[in-house]
C-alpha cells in the first residue's frame, strides 16, 4: 500500500466525519478539530497517556507471551505427527470459541489487575499463532529437511536455520490477522473492574463525565494503538519475509 494513498484515505475519512458532525450538530458527535484539541489537552494535562500506556503494555506483554508459548508449541506439533494427533482435536474444539466470553471467568480467577487482561489477549493470539505455525512447520517438505541434514545440520542447526525462519511467516501472519481482534477484546476487558486503560477511559469519559471530545480522543488513541501495531507487524512481515512478496 502506498503511503500517499493511505494519507488520502485518512483525509477522506476526516472529511466525512467533519461533514457528519456539521449535519448532526449534536454534542455526541464533536468535529475532528474539537477532538484534536481535546486529545492534545488530555495527553498533556490529563490522564490519557497513562491509560494509553497501560493498554499498550497489556497488548505488548500478551503478544510476547503468546509468541513465546505458541511458536514452540506450534513447531512441536508441526514436526511430530503423534503429538498433533493427540492435540489436534482439542485445538479443533477450542479454536473457534470466541475467547472474549472468557473475560468474566478470567476476571474471577485472576482478579482485576493486569494479568486477567493480558490473559484474555493471550488466549486469542495463542491459538492463532499455534495453528498457523503448526501448519507452516508441517508444510516443510521432508526433502528440504533431508538436504539440510545432509549438509551436516543436527537438531540445533535445523531449528536455527530451518524451523525458526519457517515459523516466522506464521507468527507474523497470525499477529497481523488477530491484532485488531486483540485490541477490541482488550477494550471489552478494560470495561470491567479497572480504573486504568483506554477501555475504562473511553467508557468513563462518555458515560460518567459526558465529556464527548475526550471520549473521542480515547477512541482515537485506541484506534492508533491498533493501527500502529498492525503497521508494525505488516512492516516486519514485508522486511523479514521478503521472499513471499518477491515476484516469481
Amino acid at each position, binding site marked *: 500500500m502506498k503511503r500517499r494513498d493511505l494519507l488520502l484515505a485518512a483525509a477522506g475519512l476526516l472529511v466525512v466525519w467533519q461533514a457528519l458532525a456539521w449535519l448532526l450538530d449534536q454534542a455526541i458527535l464533536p468535529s475532528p478539530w474539537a477532538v484534536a484539541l481535546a486529545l492534545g489537552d488530555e495527553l498533556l494535562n490529563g490522564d490519557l497517556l497513562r491509560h494509553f500506556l497501560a493498554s499498550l503494555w497489556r497488548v505488548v506483554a500478551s503478544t510476547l507471551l503468546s509468541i513465546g508459548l505458541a511458536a514452540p508449541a506450534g513447531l512441536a506439533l508441526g514436526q511430530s505427527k503423534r503429538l498433533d494427533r493427540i492435540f489436534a482435536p482439542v485445538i479443533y474444539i477450542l479454536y473457534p470459541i470466541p475467547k472474549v466470553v472468557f473475560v468474566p471467568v478470567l476476571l474471577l480467577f485472576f482478579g482485576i489487575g493486569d494479568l486477567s487482561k493480558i490473559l484474555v489477549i493471550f488466549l486469542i493470539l495463542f491459538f492463532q499463532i499455534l495453528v498457523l505455525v503448526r501448519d507452516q512447520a508441517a508444510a516443510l517438505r521432508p526433502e528440504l529437511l533431508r538436504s539440510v541434514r545432509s549438509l*551436516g545440520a543436527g537438531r540445533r542447526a535445523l531449528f536455527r536455520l530451518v524451523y525458526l525462519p519457517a515459523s516466522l511467516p506464521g507468527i507474523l501472519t497470525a499477529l497481523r490477522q488477530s491484532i485488531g481482534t486483540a485490541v477490541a477484546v482488550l477494550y471489552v476487558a478494560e470495561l470491567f473492574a479497572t480504573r486504568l486503560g483506554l477501555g475504562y477511559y473511553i467508557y468513563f469519559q462518555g458515560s460518567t463525565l459526558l465529556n464527548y471530545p475526550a471520549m473521542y480522543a480515547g477512541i482515537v488513541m485506541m484506534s492508533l494503538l491498533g493501527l500502529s501495531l498492525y503497521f508494525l507487524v505488516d512492516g516486519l512481515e514485508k522486511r523479514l519475509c521478503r521472499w513471499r512478496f518477491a515476484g516469481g
Partner: protein
Amino acid sequence: MLELQRLTFAYAHGAPIFDGFDWQAQRGEAWAVLGPSGCGKSTLLNLLAGLAQPTAGRVLVEGQPMLRPRPHTGLIIQDYGLLPWASVRENAALGLRVRNFYGPDGVHAPRDYTPTLDVDAWLERLGLLDVAGQFPGQISGGQRQRTAIARTLALQPDLLLMDEPFSSLDALTREGLQDLTLELWAEQHLTLLIVTHAIEEAAVLGQKILLLGQPPNRVPQVIDNPGVGRPGYRESAQCQAVVRELRERLLG
C-alpha cells in the same frame, strides 16, 4: 572409497530392499545407479549419505561406518532442497553456515575447517552471480539446481551423491547440467554417484552403472561404460550401445 558389506535393509514392516548385498566403488569413479521406481535407489543413497542405517551389514565410506552424515559428502536432490526464504547467495552458503554454527568439531565440520561464508567464486563458476540476490521462487529450475550444486561444492566434498537431480528439468537444461557435473567431477577430483531412472542419463554420467531390480537386491549388476567424460561421448555409437544394453537388461 564406498563399500557395502552384506548390506540388508528393510523399512519397518516391509520386505527387505537389500539382502546380503555386497558392492564397492573406488575413489574418483563416476557411478550411476539405475533402476525402476521402488528398487531402492534412493534408499541406497540415504544409506551412503548416513541419513539411514542398515538393518544388518555395514555401509563404509573411506573405511568408516556411516552412522551420521559425513562432512566431506555432498548430497544433491531433485528439487525443494533450497530454503525458499533465503537468496541464492544465502542458500549457496547454507552448508558453510551449518559448519560455522558448530565450528570445526570433526563431526559436523572437518577439524581443519576455517569459518567462511564466501561463496562468490562458486556462484561465478556456476553462472549464478547475476541472480545471487534473488529467491529460489524467482529463478529457473536449472538455476535452482546450480545453486544446490554451488552449496554442495562450497563444502569441498570428495564424494558427491545426487538423487535424480535433473529429472524435473527440460532436456537442454538437463544436458547442460550433466556436462557441468562431469566437468566438476574431473576438476574437483570427486567420487560421483548419481541415482537416476533415465537410461540415457546413466549412460552419459556413469563410468560404471549399477543396475538395481525389483527388491530384494542380492547381487549387484554392474555395467562398464569407460568412455564417460570424453568430448562428444553422448552422441557416440559406444554410448548408444550402452543405452541399448541397459534397456534390454531393464526389460528382461
